[in-house]
């Protein structure tokens, strides 16, 4: 599949948004969906629908196979050792809650420390915050430097002999910083500390290899990865999924249920309570195939070029101030514009069909550090082009004019 024509694979770009072509620069929030993914959902519901796992009639068997197929596709895509290390959740947020809750229950006690960074999304902080209350643990935040980066050294400095788990983002959804997650994991493991990586922004843009990375947990948000809403993935090393207690309780995740007590099912069932997001899981298989068809290396390259181009364009615009200048930067361009509040920017850009996001992007701690209550953010996906970034710049000039 050629990257040149990739926009055509996404039906949304056939529509005018208020008489404008859509310039979609909000992929860090959620990505658009290729036709194959939408078609898969349609076909599944209209021709093949059944609940999985529970019944043994034809449709149920077929659906179960399709469902498990996606698990295998994901396993291969992220190079996990075992397919049962892939747990489907309702989102990355649930994946992180699952780990914080079960790890907290079993391993944390008063005085223990959890190490996060100042870059973290609320989804990788609030679940840990709960443990402050219930367990009396302490949360430390490794500092962001002036480039919007968190270095290995800063992580190291914050590790104490009370650190029980490290939970960090792979790629900041504000500064674009790609953290040295492999090195951090190695360091953490040398001190026997497990590592959770919030891969919401990593998974759609970077090549993943769980066995090489060696992290203990990795959370993925499928809707940011050209997949359906209402689906996330928790990758966890098998030993953790075996050792940790179950999370939600319900049908499908039990072994035997008696009035006096309950035994729990084996992997992968143990963490998939209740009827799962069957159609979404099946459709997400097509997202993976779609990415594979283009090649994640090509996607990385394309997005890197665009990011560099976008930075160039915005740097030339004297009123724009880019936020974050990390060593290794993903396809996120956060910025401010002199004299115009980010919300006003977003509204004015929207009038031209340019969709960006404004606000704290669920990273209030980072914004407090920056001394800003809000920033504007243009974030890229495989379908973006240089023209999109030119249009962004042009519309920013319009903002300036209105506010001049």
């Amino acid at each position: 599949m050629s990257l040149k024509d990739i926009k055509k694979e996404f039906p949304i770009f056939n529509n005018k948004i208020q008489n404008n072509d859509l310039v979609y620069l909000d992929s860090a929030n959620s990505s658009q969906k290729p036709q194959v993914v939408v078609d898969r959902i349609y076909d599944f519901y209209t021709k093949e629908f059944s609940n999985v796992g529970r019944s043994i009639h034809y449709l149920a068997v077929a659906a179960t196979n399709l469902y498990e197929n996606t698990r295998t596709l994901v396993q291969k895509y992220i190079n996990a050792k075992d397919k049962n290390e892939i747990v489907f959740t309702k989102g990355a947020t649930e994946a992180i809650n699952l780990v914080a809750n079960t790890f907290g229950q079993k391993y944390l006690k008063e005085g223990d420390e959890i190490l996060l960074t100042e870059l973290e999304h609320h989804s990788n902080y609030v679940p840990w915050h709960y443990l402050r209350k219930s367990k009396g643990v302490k949360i430390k935040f490794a500092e962001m430097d002036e480039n919007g980066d968190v270095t290995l050294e800063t992580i190291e400095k914050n590790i104490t002999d009370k650190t029980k788990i490290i939970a960090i983002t792979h790629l900041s959804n504000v500064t674009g910083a790609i953290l040295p997650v492999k090195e951090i994991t190695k360091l953490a493991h040398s001190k026997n500390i497990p590592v959770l990586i919030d891969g919401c922004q990593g998974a759609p843009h970077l090549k993943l290899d769980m066995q090489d990375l060696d992290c203990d947990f990795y959370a993925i948000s499928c809707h940011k990865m050209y997949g359906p809403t209402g689906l996330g993935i928790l990758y966890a090393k098998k030993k953790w999924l075996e050792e940790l207690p179950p999370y939600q309780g319900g049908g499908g995740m039990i072994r035997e249920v008696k009035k006096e007590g309950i035994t729990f099912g084996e992997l992968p069932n143990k963490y998939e309570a209740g009827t799962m997001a069957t159609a979404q899981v099946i459709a997400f298989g097509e997202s993976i195939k779609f990415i594979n068809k283009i090649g994640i290396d090509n996607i990385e390259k394309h997005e890197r070029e665009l990011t560099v181009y976008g930075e160039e364009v915005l740097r030339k615009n004297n009123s724009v101030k880019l936020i974050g200048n990390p060593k290794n930067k993903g396809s996120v361009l956060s910025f401010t514009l002199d004299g115009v509040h980010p919300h006003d920017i977003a509204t004015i850009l929207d009038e031209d069909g340019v969709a960006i996001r404004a606000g704290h992007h669920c990273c209030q701690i980072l914004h407090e550090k920056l001394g800003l209550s809000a920033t504007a953010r243009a974030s890229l996906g495989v379908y973006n082009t240089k023209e999109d970034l030119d249009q962004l710049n042009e519309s920013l000039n319009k903002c300036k004019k209105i506010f001049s």
Partner: protein
Amino acid sequence: MDLKELYQEIILDHGKNPRNIGKFENFNKDAEGYNPLCGDKVHIYLKLNENKEIEDISFEGHGCAISMASASIMTELMKDKKNPEVKEILNDFLDMIKQSPELKSQLIKEDEKTKLMSLSGVKQYPMRVKCATIAWHALASAMNYKKDENNSEKFI
């Protein structure tokens, strides 16, 4: 939709140069309005005298042009207003932003109406409505008006 409607001269002016900004010394009531979605914040300070008259009013905060302009215009308007008047104007303004085509209160003078109506552009931008009302809700809190059960945004 029309950006010119949203960003009228008055708004741009008040947005850039908000009036009555900064905490003053002897306030006796205050409240914070906050929009968790975008992080905009407006803190209102009042001096309510024994006649329940707003002797002084100011605000602190940060946010978009709309929220700053709205706070600025509101503080100008509310100065020297008495308690029941404040409530009437507040409800009238919120009603206008929500649905009514015009302001009805006799308590608002024509030139003041023009200023307030300059905020009506947000009606076409549903996500910006909160920007226009954040200061007003903060004032309602500071004045201890309670929302009624049905969440209807009228202060009783």
